[in-house]
Structure formats: structure tokens, C-alpha cells
């Protein structure tokens, strides 16, 4: 299990992480989402032992990861800007990684040659951004990590390769119990693979739950009321957003769909329907309360 407890990190007076905490359970896919500058990459750099927190703890299997080779050996990371030595080839980098990661799987490296179809002996710098990303996946997955940490992992990959990579990762999750922590802006994609989600903003983790819990705890209701009888909703309901088009009112309410529907039925709507929210909608409405909403700008 990966645990980040209340970490604070400042860069020359700018607070990048302000008491952020996450818990990544083993054997699943954890999606870390948030707007630009929320602190996702910073938290990942703490998880991989690059940064030391100003305060707080970053634990892998109960031990601090910073300067802990044994725990770092369990991790493989693919940052959004993967570094390779100038003029080195995939083969060179494989030899380099093999010298560090005790579980490096040479057979897997050979098998993945067919999957990725990359020129193994060509300088990586000559490859396209997407090909470089594939190379990063190839090498990271050969390290046989227990924890695979990905920062904007599929940026630059074509749809086929994107699906291929996710397929490989998901098979590792199911077959080997690999834990994947992924930070991405592509919420539709995350929705398909994540079982846990953490939403970050301004250096803090706003909420963290399993995706099903999250979807069960926030509901979109569409209601049609009798003309001139639009009720005032009960105060105990936590309404995140209200809008209406004609007589159709849409409410985003935090809580269980069944309970909220029961409370609204009291006002005798002509029609009342509870709809599930997509991760993207949850993201938008949760952050709306944090003054991070789409601004209506007229140019």
C-alpha cells in the first residue's frame, strides 16, 4: 500500500502541496485527477523518491520511500517527460535499468519486442514522442514493479497503442496484483480503468474514494414540476449545482440517489429521474465548489 500523509512542499515560497494525503490500496488502479497546477506531478515525485517532503510522510508498504532503495525497487515510474541518455538506444537503456532493478525481466523484454515494434538499436532521441513513450512503457513494465506510477502516461500514444498499453497494464494488475497509480487529465479514459480516484486542487486532496462510492455519493436528478410550483429544496440536501432548460430542472446533489429521490417525491414532481454522473462531471462539480469552474467569457 502507498500512503501519503499530510505532506507539505513549498518551492521558494510557493506551496505546491499543502497537507495532501492519499492512500493507494494494493492491486488496483488509482486515478489522481486535478486541474493544472493542482500538485499531481509533485506528489508523484514524492512517491518516487525524487523530492523529500517539507513535512508529512510518504510511505510504501509502511516505510518512507525517500532514500530507501528497497522500497524504490518496488516502484517503476513513467513521468510525463521521460529522461533517456542522449544518443542511447532502447537496448542501452534496458541494460542500464537491468543493472538497477533486481526483478528486471529479460524474457519479458524479448516478448515486448513484438508488442511495441520499436527499433531497439536506434537512438531514442530520433524517435517520435509517441514512440519514446512506448519505449518508456516497454522498459518500465520489464522492471516487474509492484507499483507502477504513471504521470500523464498515454499522452502522445495513438488510440490503438493506447488500448494496447492499458491492456498490458490491466493484465499485470489482474495476474500479478500490480498496483497502478495514474495521474491524467483524460477522465473518460480513467473512468474505464480506475477503481479508486483522488481529486486534487491547489495542493490538497479534496476527496478520495472508490469510483463506485464516488458515483453513488453524488447524483444528477432531472425533475419536471407543475407550472408555478417549483419547490424550495430541503436545506439538508447538499446541492452542488442547479440549472433548468424550460420546465426540466437538473440538480447535482451530494448523497445517495434513493434517499434524495424519496425527499423530492414529497413535492410531487411531474417527473423525477436519478442519473449516474460521469467522472468528468464529478470532477467539474466537485471543483466548482472550490472556485474552479468553467467561466463564461464573452469575447
Amino acid at each position, binding site marked *: 500500500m502507498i500512503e501519503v500523509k499530510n505532506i507539505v512542499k513549498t*518551492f521558494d515560497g510557493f506551496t505546491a502541496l499543502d497537507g495532501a494525503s492519499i492512500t493507494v490500496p494494493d492491486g488496483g488502479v488509482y486515478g489522481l485527477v486535478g486541474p493544472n497546477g493542482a500538485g499531481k506531478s509533485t506528489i508523484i*515525485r514524492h512517491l*518516487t*523518491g*525524487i*523530492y*523529500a517532503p517539507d513535512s508529512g510522510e510518504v510511505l510504501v508498504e509502511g516505510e518512507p520511500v525517500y*532514500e*530507501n*532503495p*528497497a522500497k*524504490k*525497487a*518496488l*516502484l517503476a*515510474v513513467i*513521468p510525463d*517527460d*521521460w*529522461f533517456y*541518455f542522449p*544518443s*542511447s538506444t532502447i537496448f542501452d537503456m534496458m*541494460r*542500464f535499468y*537491468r*543493472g*538497477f*532493478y*533486481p*526483478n528486471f525481466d529479460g524474457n519479458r523484454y524479448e516478448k515486448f519486442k513484438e508488442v511495441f515494434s520499436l527499433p531497439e538499436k536506434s537512438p531514442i532521441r530520433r524517435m517520435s514522442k509517441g514512440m519514446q513513450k512506448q519505449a518508456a512503457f516497454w522498459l518500465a513494465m520489464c522492471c516487474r514493479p509492484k507499483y507502477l506510477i504513471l504521470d500523464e502516461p498515454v499522452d502522445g500514444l495513438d488510440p490503438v497503442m493506447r488500448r494496447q498499453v492499458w491492456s498490458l497494464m490491466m493484465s499485470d494488475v489482474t495476474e500479478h496484483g500490480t498496483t497502478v497509480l495514474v495521474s491524467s487529465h483524460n477522465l473518460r479514459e480513467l473512468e474505464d480503468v480506475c477503481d479508486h480516484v483522488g481529486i486534487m486542487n491547489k495542493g490538497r486532496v479534496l476527496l478520495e474514494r472508490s469510483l463506485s462510492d464516488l458515483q453513488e455519493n453524488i447524483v444528477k436528478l432531472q425533475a419536471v414540476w407543475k407550472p408555478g410550483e417549483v419547490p424550495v429544496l430541503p436545506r439538508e440536501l447538499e446541492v452542488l449545482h442547479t440549472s433548468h432548460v424550460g420546465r426540466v430542472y437538473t440538480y447535482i446533489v451530494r448523497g445517495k440517489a434513493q434517499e434524495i429521490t424519496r425527499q423530492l417525491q414529497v413535492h410531487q414532481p411531474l417527473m423525477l429521474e436519478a442519473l449516474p454522473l460521469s467522472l468528468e462531471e464529478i470532477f467539474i462539480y466537485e471543483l466548482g465548489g472550490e472556485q474552479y469552474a468553467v467561466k463564461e467569457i464573452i469575447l
Partner: protein
Amino acid sequence: MQSKRSFFNKALFRKNLTRYWPLWGGMSIAGSFIPLYMLLELSTRTSLGLAPGPNDFAELLYGAVTIFAPTFLMVYALLCAMLVWNYLYSPRAVGLMHTLPVDRTCLFVTNALSGLVMLGIPFLVVGGLLCLLALAFGFFNLLAAVNTVAAVILLAVLFFGLATLCAMLTGHTAMLPALYLLLNFLAALLETMVGFLNQTFLMGIPLQSMQLQFLTPLLQIYENFTVGYLDMEPASAASQESAVYLQGLGTVALYGLAGIGLLALSWLLYRKRQSERAGDIVAYRPLRPVFRYGVALLSALTLGPLLESAFWAAIYADIPSSNLLPMIVCMAIAGVVGYYVASMLLEKSLRVFKGSWKGVLAVCAGAAVICLTVSMDLFGLENKIPALDEIQKVTLNGFTCMTFETDTAEGRQLTEQTLDIHRSILADKDYIYSMDRSKYGYRDTQYDEKWTYSSVWITYYLTDGSTLERGYTLPVFESRLQNADTFDGKLYQMAHSEEAMLQQLGVPEDSVPQIDVYIQGAEYGLSGNADHLMDALRQDAREGNLRTSVFPYWEGEATDDFYDVRLHISFLAKRDDGSYTGSAESVTLCSTMTHTIDALVAEGYLTQEQMTSIQDGDYAFIADLEE
């Protein structure tokens, strides 16, 4: 899974060596020309029947390691450090390296060893080829090879340690060489600049007094690390097996230890280094003010006096007190410029002016404090004269060159005389400065008598092992030479004592002199019995017949007492450690040196007719000598 702690990673080591092979490979190939040249040289010498011996091999290696290696290693160590530590300066690269499942100690040790091995490979290649060559030609010297290897390793550790420390202190590639060069010469630079300030405001403080030279390794090494020659008497040099040795290997060993200390300090710093500092000029936040004010101080000390020289001192340089305010202003301006440049580098922005008034004020105040401290001589440098009991030895260089030790009654008396002269100079400070004012353009018209400027240099070797040096440029007037109360009179009197005259010859009793005679500045191959001529010179010295030349020829002195004949005495003197050193002295012939004049004629250097011509001031006969 790694269960035990590792201090070295083979993959990283191999990667470093394979990535940077063009550097060490290129150096090795370039260095291989040395053995190639030597092979050709040896073939030529062997064909001429001049087979080299082990001493020649030792001399070759020692010469290379003392002359070539220090500068080469200083530069090459920087290049190696720049390569192995360059990942610290890129956020992406540092991200990769610090994600790897090794700790920083392992990364540090592996990278440091990679750098040191890269440093050593060219020496290994060149040294190995030289040894093979020496073995093939039968003049291999194992001791010399071991000493050379030890010296190279120690020098490599020193310079790589310093470069590594600089690599740790900064987070920017361009800053590393700048900082490295600065730290290598910082002490010398600061001493020079402070010395220059002292010279501006104080009388007699020399510029070349390097108390902190040990902090400038290259200078210290070049001064102390040399090839020594044991018992190198001309006749027996070839037969001495251990004639050549490395002098100052101990100094290099101390620097090597310092290099290990620097590496240890670098390791401690690396453990605390924040990865996010990649790209910053200064890698540690607490060092940012040190950098900011350090650059301001350096700028004030170097550019300030330059500005002052350019805009003020060139016109009004003569009175030190008048330089105070301009110097404060110039140093403050230079310091503020340095302060803002450092701030811009630190912030990576030109917008550093807002709210900087406190720093600017501090820099200006600092400039004023430095100038006032120096000009008011708060440390009492100008008037510092050691007590007689504190002095072990004195060298007085003024009118004549004398050295005397205080362990004899005569030496103590001469020391007291020197102290008296020193006090008189300080007491006449205002007079000296008032004369100094007239050196620009009024020399010939202002005075009716003969006068000149003379340099006087006094070095006190103190009982605590330190030295105190003072140097003065003094106005000397003919009328004051006979006045025993003036510093010129006291100097003149001392220069004509018997002890001074014997010392003026400067030739030890047991040395073998060779005397060349120069007439009107040219040597005409005149020769004779040098031993007898030397005895005559000593006899003249004992009788007080030698004269010290005070005024230059154009002041008319030469036609009064001195002939335009100079006796150049070169000799080999034996050192305390048994080795020999060559030296030379020069004596100008004057009319009072009767024994020498007689000996020059008697020993066949000059004919009686030529000597008579010289005494008459007629040098026409040298045309015949030229033919």
C-alpha cells in the same frame, strides 16, 4: 529485491565510462604522442651511443608530473566533474537518477569513482607506454614510477574533490566552471585586492605578501612541488643513482588529503541536496545570501579600485587620504552592480530592483567600512615593526642587499640599525609623500642636487616562523646621505659597513666562482684567474673600498666614482640539504677598489693600458675588443 546496502553500482559506472569515452579516449590518444616522441628521441640517442639511465627516466616523469600534471589535472578534473555530475542540473535527468533504487551514497560513490577513473585513464595509458619503453630500453626506475603514480592520484583527488564540491554547490551547468575557477584562485584574488587597497591607503605594504597561498593549490603546488637534484656536482652527476627526486611530495599528499575531505563534504551536501534545485544557480537556499553578498564583495574589491584608478587616482593619486571618498564611492558602485548581477542570476529575472534598497544599503555600508578600516589602519599594519627579540633573521634590500641573523652580536647590531631605519622611514611619512607628489613632471627642475627614488625592501623572519615584509619607494637626496639622522643617511651608512660590503659580493667562501667582465654593458669574453680576482674583491670589501651605487648614471655619479665596468660573478653554492644551487652577483667597479683593479690587470682580464683608459673615462678601446 535489494536487501543489503550497496555503495557502488556497476551499471552506472559502466554507463558513465561508455557515455564519456570520447573525453578520456581523446586525452589518452593525445597523450600517446609523448611516448611516441620519446621513442624517436631514444632511437636517436641510442644510435649516437648516449644510452639513457634510470635517472633520465625519473627526471622525465618528475618533470612531467611537476610541470604539466597540475595545470592539466586542474582543467581535466573540471571536465570530468562536469560530465559525471551534469545530471544534477536537469530536472528530467535528476528525476531519473533519483528514482532509481539506490541511495545517494551509492550514486555519489559510483559517480565519483567514475570521474576519478576517467581522470586516471589517460595517465595510465601514457605512463604505461612510458614504462614499457623504459623497460625495453633498460632504464626503468620503479621508485620514480611509484612516486609519479602517487603524485598523479593525489593531484587528481584534490582537483576532482574541489570540482565535485563546486558541482554540489551549484545547480547550473554554466556556473560549475565559473565557481571552480573562482574557488581555485579566490584566496589569491582576495589577497591581491586587499593588498592593492592597503597599498592605496598605507605606506610600505607589499602586494606580493601571500599569507593565504595555501588556499590557492595550483600556486602552492608549483612553488613547492619541484624536481630536486641531490649532490648534483657537475663532475659526479652522472654517477649518482639517486640524484633526482620529487621535492614537495608531502605538500601534494596534504592537498590529496584535503581533496578527500572535499569529497566527503560533497557527499554530505549531496545527501541534503534537493532535486528541485536543478537549474538554480545556487543549490542550497542558505547559501543564496552568501552568493549575493559574496559577488557584491568581489565586485567591490576588484572593480571598485579599477574605477577609482580610471576616474580619480590617475589625476590625484599622490595623497592617500584624498583617495578615501572616491574609493568608497567607486567600491559602493561596483558592489551594488555585483549585488544586482547576483540577484538577477539567483532569481533568473531582470526584475530584482523592487525592495532591494536594504541590500544596496548594506553593500554601500560594507564598502565604506572596508575603506575606512584600511585607511585608518585599524589593524596597525603600516606602523607594525617587530621587537628585536621577535626577529630571527632580517633581509634588507636597499642600496645594498644584506641578510643577517640575530644570533650573533654583530647580527643584532645590524638588526637594530635596520629597525632604526624602518622607524625613520615611518617617521618621515609626510616628507616621503610630499616628495612623491613631485614625481610627475617636475623632477629635473625642482632640485639643484642629485636625487633619485630608491626601493627599500625589508623582510623580517620572525621567531614564530612568520615573515613581515615592507617595501618603500623613497626619495634619496645627495645632501641627506651624509646626515646620519635621515633614513637615506642611515641606509647609506649601513650599506658601506664591512659586513654589508662582504655580503654585497654574496659569494660564499667555499664556492667556485666564475667572473665575467662587462664593459659598457657588454661582455667581451675576457677571462683570467677567477679565484685570485675573488680574493681581491673580498679584500676590497673588508677594507671598505666597495661603493654602493645610489644614483643612476645620468645623475653624474658614474663619472665621479664608478666605472662603466661590471663584474658578474656566477657560482654554485651548496645548500643545507647537500644539493647545489646556482646563483650570481654583480659588482660595479669603482675607483676605490684598488685590489680588484690590480687583480684585473694581474690576472689577465685587462691590460694596464685598457685599465688606464677606463680610469680616464675613455672606452674607445672596446672597439678593438669587438673586432
